Structures are given as C-alpha cells and as structure tokens.
C-alpha cells in the first residue's frame, strides 16, 4: 500500500467516491480482492466439510466394494446424468451473469441470474423424484430398509452416504438459489454494473464450488455400478 497520508488518497474523502465502496477500503479493486479472498477462505472450510464425507466414502467403499457397486447400480444414471448437465448449464449462466455485469448489460444480469435459478430448481426437482424412488424401493437407511443383495447392511452404508452427501449438496443449492434470488432483485434495481459486482462474483464462486462437488459425486455415486448388468432399478 502507498504510504501517502490517508486524508489525501482515501476516495471517501474525495468528492466523487463510488456509492458501493465501503469506507475501510481504499479502492474498489482492493474491496473486490478482499471479498474474493474472504469467499475462498469460506470455500476452503467447505472443501474440508465435504472432504470428510468423501473420505468416509473412500474408506467404506474400499472395504465393501461389491456391496457399494451393487447399491450404486440401483441409482438412476439417466437422471443423475441429466442433472449433471443441468448443473453445468447453471454454472454457465452464472458465469454469464458476471460477464453481463462486466459489459454493463444490466438486463442481462437479471436474465442470467433468473436462468441460473431456473436450472438450479430443475436440478432439485429431478433430485426430489430420485429421492421418491428411493423411498418406494425401501432404499432409505432405517428400520424399513430393504436391499436385494448378499450384504444389505453394507449396501445400507452406501445409501447413508448417498443421502448425506446428495442431501448436503442439495441444501447448498437451496441456499444458493435463495441468495441468487436476492441478487436478481438487487440487479433488477440496478445495483450492479461493471464498476461494482462483488456480490455476483462471490456468489458465483459459491455456486461453481457446489457444481464441483457434484462433478465428483456423479461418478462416485452413480457411475460406480454402471458396468454391472441385469437387475434393473
């Protein structure tokens, strides 16, 4: 940082400072770097949060490989695949919302945020249908759990991990959609343009991170048993 006196260099003390510049920052750029770094610190905690579950998955799966493959085989790969595409699409529209802000296309910001919300909601609806299928087949861990295989108690561990991991992922999406709704409202009010769009940037980081979690969940949960044949779901 420059060592010149604050009173001379601080934009808040000049006549025309940006309305979105908080007083503790010297410049909008510094403010943006701070919020990006702060979001990344949060995402590091998220990496460890989901990481613990991925680790549990690796440990249990390496112990019970056959039961995990058999349980995975009952998942609906088509629905999972469609949801993967939907989520990747929502990451694209999220990135385009930020692009729209950068090129000062305010209507575009609202449009792309609403598209992101729509795709995120589509994902959750598909997920809800999948969960219903699990309840119908008694694949939900608990007293009513049933599994047509040699080691149902090991398959039950797979389904416990399936519900915790996808459930936690879906919870993150619900929170993300709520935040995107607020951002869409502010964008509609004209709060964001090329000079200031930090909330879009950091929410985008969160949204893409949730996408990355799914990028790993899809092969690990759905594709694991895809090579097995017979015994359709």
């Amino acid at each position, binding site marked *: 940082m420059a060592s010149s006196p604050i009173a001379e260099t601080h934009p808040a003390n000049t006549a025309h400072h940006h309305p979105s510049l908080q007083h503790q920052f010297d410049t909008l750029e510094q403010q943006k770097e701070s919020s990006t770094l702060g979001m990344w610190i949060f995402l590091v905690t998220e990496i460890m949060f989901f990481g613990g579950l991925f680790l549990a998955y690796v*440990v249990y799966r390496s112990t019970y490989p056959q039961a995990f493959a058999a349980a995975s085989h009952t998942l609906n790969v088509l629905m999972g695949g469609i949801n993967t595409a939907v989520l990747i699409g929502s*990451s694209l529209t999220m990135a385009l919302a930020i692009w729209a802000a950068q090129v000062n296309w305010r209507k575009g910001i609202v449009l792309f945020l609403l598209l992101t919300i729509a795709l995120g909601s589509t994902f959750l609806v598909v997920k809800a249908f999948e969960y219903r299928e699990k309840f119908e087949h008694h694949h939900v861990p608990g007293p009513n759990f049933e599994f047509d295989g040699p080691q149902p108690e090991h398959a039950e561990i797979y389904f416990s991990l399936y519900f915790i991991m996808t459930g936690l992922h879906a919870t993150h999406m619900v929170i993300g959609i709520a935040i995107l709704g607020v951002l869409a409202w502010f964008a509609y009010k004209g709060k964001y343009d090329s000079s200031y769009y930090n909330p879009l940037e950091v929410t985008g980081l969160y949204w893409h991170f949730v996408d990355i979690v799914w990028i790993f969940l899809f092969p690990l949960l759905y594709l694991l048993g895809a090579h097995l044949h017979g015994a359709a779901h």
Partner: protein
Amino acid sequence: MAEHITPKRTYIAVFAALLVLTLVTWLVAQVDLGWANDVVALTIAVTKALLVLWFFMHLRYSTRMTVLTALAGFFWLGIMIFLTLNDYLTRGSSLLPVMGK
C-alpha cells in the same frame, strides 16, 4: 480498475467441454475395466473441476494470494485423505464400526 473480462465464447467452450467430459465418463463407466474405471472417472472429474476453477471461478485472473488459498484447501484435503488411508489400508477393516441389522 484492471478488468479481465472473459469473453462469452470462452465460457461456452468450457461448458461444451464439461458436457463432453460428462458423456465420456458415462460411456467409459459402462465398460468393466476393474481398478482403471476409478482412475478414468477421477481423472475426468479432476479435469472438469480444474476447468471450472480456472475459467468459471476466475482463478486465472485472481491474485496469487487467492490461488494459494485455493491450493491450500485442496492440499489439506489431500493430506487428510492420504494419512487416513495410510491407517485404514494397512490395518484392515477391523477399525470400522458397522451398523448391526
């Protein structure tokens, strides 16, 4: 303000690449390759994650501090998985609690 605007076509190209990789990982999973199935699936997943991190999450335009923070997160995840597996894979499944039916 030093602005780096990723052009629209770059985002769309990354999106297309992610879709193709999803299709490839799904196709490869249909074939029983033994342990190689996991190697292929994880290689593709890591590639997809890197595409998202680099382009969608703007790491290519981020400060070194931010890139270092992101790397630290994944590095610590690696430590956690590596050290835990050292234990489980050498001492067997006797360490695992299993729910009774």
